[in-house]
């Protein structure tokens, strides 16, 4: 698209002689609205354009999140763009070495677990970074995804270079009356997620307390207690008793970096970079992290190197430096098990220089 560098993927048929109608058969990606809510009116508008100007086949939605319109010819491209922007007030999505169309779970719009407004953050960043989205200036693709809580319904930890996942820092809120109601069978565990099979009567100890991965819960027969300092917010107790056990009130998000598919060096999931950030308009704190990362990656990243590969190549330490984040044990599952530690010259007294003479006085040749 004129002035854009992404949003359309050139497709050329392998058998143009046999199928001249689809000799070129490009894919058009449209930015989907955050949360993927639609009105029929809007969708019909898009369909009308596609019926007129494309194959009539869509991919609703692509794995990144776009509305993907499959197959049109070169002359139609600008026409489609004109229609889409003028009639539908909608823009193209990303492709190529740029920011890809961000995507989110539906978050607080319909989910009691959401720790921040995924849709607002997704929409705001999408709009603030339109330039990065449309005009490839990155070493390779870069994806944002926004999960409202650690359940990860948009799989951001596996599918986005920059994954924002809701969490909280205060205590899990427990409604003890409703706990009793669960025990009494008035509420179904998991909201009924396991109905239709006889798993026996709900057993709060076996199903919740004993399954807590940190062992920080206890139930004395009447009251459910949580040692919040040892909770890792895995969501299990909350998922299992959503009416009684609720996320904390001081909510925000964790930021993780670097997920990617297997090509070239093997798949990565995102790694924890910022354990906790408050998520509020105008999202400056989050944007600062993003922009520090981009500056670094645009400077140091090789061609076709995802940021996850850059951080693997240049070290997590380097990433911390460029984002001004202090190293903390939360960054690792475990400390290094090799003693091959690099020191900076300024960390070593006297720097890297040796006093060779003194050395050879102590140790003759």
């Amino acid at each position, binding site marked *: 698209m004129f002035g854009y560098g992404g949003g359309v993927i050139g497709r050329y048929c392998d058998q143009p002689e046999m199928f001249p109608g689809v000799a070129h058969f490009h894919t058009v990606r449209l930015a989907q609205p955050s949360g993927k809510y639609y009105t029929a009116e809007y969708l019909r508008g898009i369909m009308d354009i596609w019926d007129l100007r494309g194959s009539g086949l869509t991919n609703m939605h692509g794995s990144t999140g776009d509305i993907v319109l*499959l197959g049109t010819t070169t002359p139609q491209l600008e026409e489609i763009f004109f229609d889409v922007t003028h009639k*539908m007030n909608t823009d193209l999505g990303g492709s190529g070495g740029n920011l890809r169309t961000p995507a989110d779970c539906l978050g*607080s719009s319909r989910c009691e677990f959401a720790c921040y407004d995924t849709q607002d953050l997704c929409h705001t960043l999408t709009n603030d970074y339109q330039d990065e989205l449309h005009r490839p200036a990155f070493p390779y693709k870069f994806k944002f995804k926004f999960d409202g809580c650690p359940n990860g319904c948009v799989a951001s930890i596996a599918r986005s270079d920059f994954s924002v996942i809701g969490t909280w820092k205060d205590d899990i809120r427990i409604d003890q009356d409703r706990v009793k109601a669960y025990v009494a069978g008035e509420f179904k565990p998991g909201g009924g997620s396991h109905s239709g099979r006889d798993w026996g009567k709900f057993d709060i100890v076996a199903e919740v307390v004993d399954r807590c991965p940190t062992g920080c819960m206890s139930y004395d027969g009447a009251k459910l207690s949580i040692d919040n300092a040892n909770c890792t917010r895995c969501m299990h107790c909350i998922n299992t008793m959503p009416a009684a056990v609720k996320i904390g009130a001081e909510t925000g998000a964790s930021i993780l970096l670097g997920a990617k598919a297997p090509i070239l060096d093997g798949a990565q999931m995102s790694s924890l970079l910022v354990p906790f950030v408050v998520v509020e308009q105008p999202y400056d704190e989050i944007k600062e992290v993003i922009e520090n990362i981009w500056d670094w990656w645009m400077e140091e990243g090789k061609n076709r190197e995802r940021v996850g590969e850059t951080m693997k190549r240049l070290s997590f330490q380097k990433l911390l430096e460029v984002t001004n984040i202090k190293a903390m044990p939360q960054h690792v599952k475990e400390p290094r098990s090799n003693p091959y530690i690099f020191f900076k010259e300024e960390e070593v007294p006297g720097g890297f220089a040796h006093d060779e003479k003194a050395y050879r006085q102590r140790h003759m040749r």
Partner: protein
Amino acid sequence: MAFISSGYNPDKPMENRITDIGPRHFEEFYPPVIKKNKGQWDYHEIVKPGVLKHVGLSGDVVYTVRVGAARLMSVTHIREICEIAEKHCGGHLRFTTRNNVEFMVETEAAVDALIADLASRKFAGGSQKFPVGGTGACVSNIVHTQGYAHCHTPATDASGPVKAVMDEMFTYFQSMTLPAMVRISLACCLNMCGAVHCSDIGIVGIHRKPPIVEHDRLDNICEVPLAVSACPTGAIKPAKVEIDGKKVNSVAVNASRCMYCGNCYTMCPAMPLASGEGDGIVLMVGGKVSNRISMPKFSKVVVAFIPNEPPRWPTLTKMIKQIVEVYAKEARKYERLGEWAERIGWEKFFELCDLEFTHHCIDDFRDPAYYTWRQSTQFKFTKHIEA
């Protein structure tokens, strides 16, 4: 497809141009009950498979009816979805992150009417157009990629195996009787467009032959250094080749170092590696992305090769069915497939699921491979150990 000018003037491309407006604001599309209760939801219930009920602190209720979708949809199909939304939901609907369609209504009566309507809509062949399901401890929609339909590197098809597998899994889509959710995904090549590498069951297309090198055109359409540097294993070297008595620049592939990843083909179309006999599927299991109980996990290779068997992919579907059924029987409530395999040990997983363990399942990719071998005497005796 027809060509009618939109008003765009190719001679003055900047005229009336609108750019950088992004997607529409999400609030424009919210159903009123969503808009009102946003951020104020109290809890949810799954009334029955495919039907969620979210209760607001306000006391408001929204019912969501989830409908399986094929993802590759025609304009006609989407118009029918719009029609349903208009008829039952004030014109509102949404798509889920796994490409299902959700219709939201506010009363139980409306749920019943909606479901009756959905049930009445069938494809010509008699199958359901809008099957309700995909909630709770189920097999939800298979996330997949484009396959033969619209990508250039696939080693297997997408829609074909997805349909075959999903037909086999259909009862699990419409019920919630599994120990936990089972997420199935398909990627037609190692690019793995989607979270296939972290799915309970991942179906991935693989090639098994090193690329063809089209010496006669390689130097014209690719840059040799780019092709060389594309290879993660260093299998590609520059080479001079004689064609019709003329020396041309090309590349040579060291077949024994090639792992058929296709990255060279991505960079250089003169190095295709698709092959009827070579291509097929690798089956990976035990991944997850949620942080529930255990940390997110990668899927593991349990069957290194399954041939492409269109149209019904019988070997693939049989194996998946076998795994899901054994899992359904053996795992604990809330336990994901990978959590179960880890608890019982992978040697037991192979035994119980009656899968052959081959040397291909052992990691040999770079340094981290070492950490997947067993540095312990802790193991279980299974039939794999001869007496």
